[in-house]
């Protein structure tokens, strides 16, 4: 098998990470942005795993993917009066 699986995994993770980051900064709905943030941080954790840094990967999942987006979403929801945006504010489409 001449395939370099680590390189393939790296490319897949990087593409996903860049996609999620672009979605994160362009998304108009802030709670969706928090979800994309969680997805971005998990893919970053996957790249740590490729570097054989299992401990950093697990701490990344535990702290950055588990707690930080939750805090963001919590803060965002506390600051808004409306549960969701007006229909006209939707950025996509």
């Amino acid at each position: 098998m001449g395939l370099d699986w680590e390189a393939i995994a790296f490319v897949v993770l990087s593409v996903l990470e860049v996609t999620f980051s672009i979605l994160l900064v362009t998304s108009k709905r802030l709670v969706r942005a928090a979800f994309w943030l969680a997805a971005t941080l998990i893919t970053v954790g996957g790249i740590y795993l490729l570097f054989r840094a299992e401990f950093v990967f697990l701490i990344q999942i535990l702290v950055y993917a588990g707690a930080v987006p939750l805090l963001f979403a919590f803060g965002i929801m506390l600051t808004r009066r409306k549960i969701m945006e007006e229909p006209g504010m939707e950025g996509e489409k």
Partner: protein
Amino acid sequence: MSAPLVPSLFGSCYILTGAIIWIVDKILYAIGYVIPPLNGPLAALGGWLASPAVLTFLTWFVMVLVMVIWAVLLNLLTMMWVERKVYSRLQDRYGIMISIWSLPLWPFNRRKDKATHRGWGFLQNVADGMKLLQKENIVPAAADSMMFSVAPAWIAGTTLMVFAALPWSSGLSVANLDLGVLFILAAFSLAPLGILIAGWSSNNTSTLVGGMRSAAMLMAYEIPLILAVIALVFTTGSLDPQTLVLQQEQTLVALGPVSIPRWNLFGPQVIGFIVFMVAIVAEMERIPFDLPEADAELVEGWTTELTGMRFGLVFGFKWLRMIAGAALLSILYLGGWSGPVFYTFYLGSVPIPIIPAEAWFMLRIYLLGIFFVLLSWAVPRVRIDQILNIGWKRLIPLALLAILVAAAARVFGYVG
């Protein structure tokens, strides 16, 4: 010393996969015999399937499948059944009774004079699941439909992730990680985001309040949970479930013929045990702490708008989280799967312990499960501010105290 029934899940699944591929190979050969032009490509396909790399790859799939069937199909249903039977007994009634005798098929419906609902009720949960599968998946018109669909999958997926690293004995596990306990805790901590998203995306006051409560509560209880594990690491020096259980198999005190094992519960970790136990009950969202879906205040909390099998997933997987929590508790503090074997007999050359390690582990899981059930149906629900006070003002100082005690014990030479 304990002995597992399955010495190596990979080895067992390798044999199983080999058998499946052998049968597939025979079927391919038969098809090739009937339709001669296909003979060449089919033989090549059979050879490719039997090559070692493909066989190993497929074995991993079979292993994951076996673990999912074991955890979800057997233990989840049994735990739900135990809960529904135990709380019915607590309320002085029979509880669920749909069993194999309720099936409208030949061997079961012979006696027309007897009631069909007269069994132990094990098939009630299966019947409920079948009902939920037939229901329509309704997405509320004002909901954020993408997030609404993602959230149940997120919760179910992260809960199943726990079972990738959770060993059921020294052999029955998918992956043995050096940092297994940390992996389990990390997978556990991912679900609250899904709960918050489910609550928010339904665009409903009850679900939003439920999601917010869940986020606030799980954040408050995640910290003492991790701190208790840090206190444990001070004396054990390991996060590998296998090492933790091996350490707890040693004898603490021998009282004549009975020897008390060296469980982490007996010793300086007792404060950590109490903190961990309370925090894990909160993580499971069981009744003293089930504020996110308090059915008296918020219709069904963050699950109100979910319908059909989406509801079935998030509802049923609460019991899976309960199993995972009880398993974690017993690995960390209650000796895991250690226990006496008494007698080993041999089937050919395969040793079969009469009480395998898996049985000891499941005994602990189900006893803890019954304890959680009795707890949640005997005590009232706590208010949200009281819950947060318990979390931030009581459990975190207690967990810090547990770390101090464990560190002092380590300084004075207590190990494992």
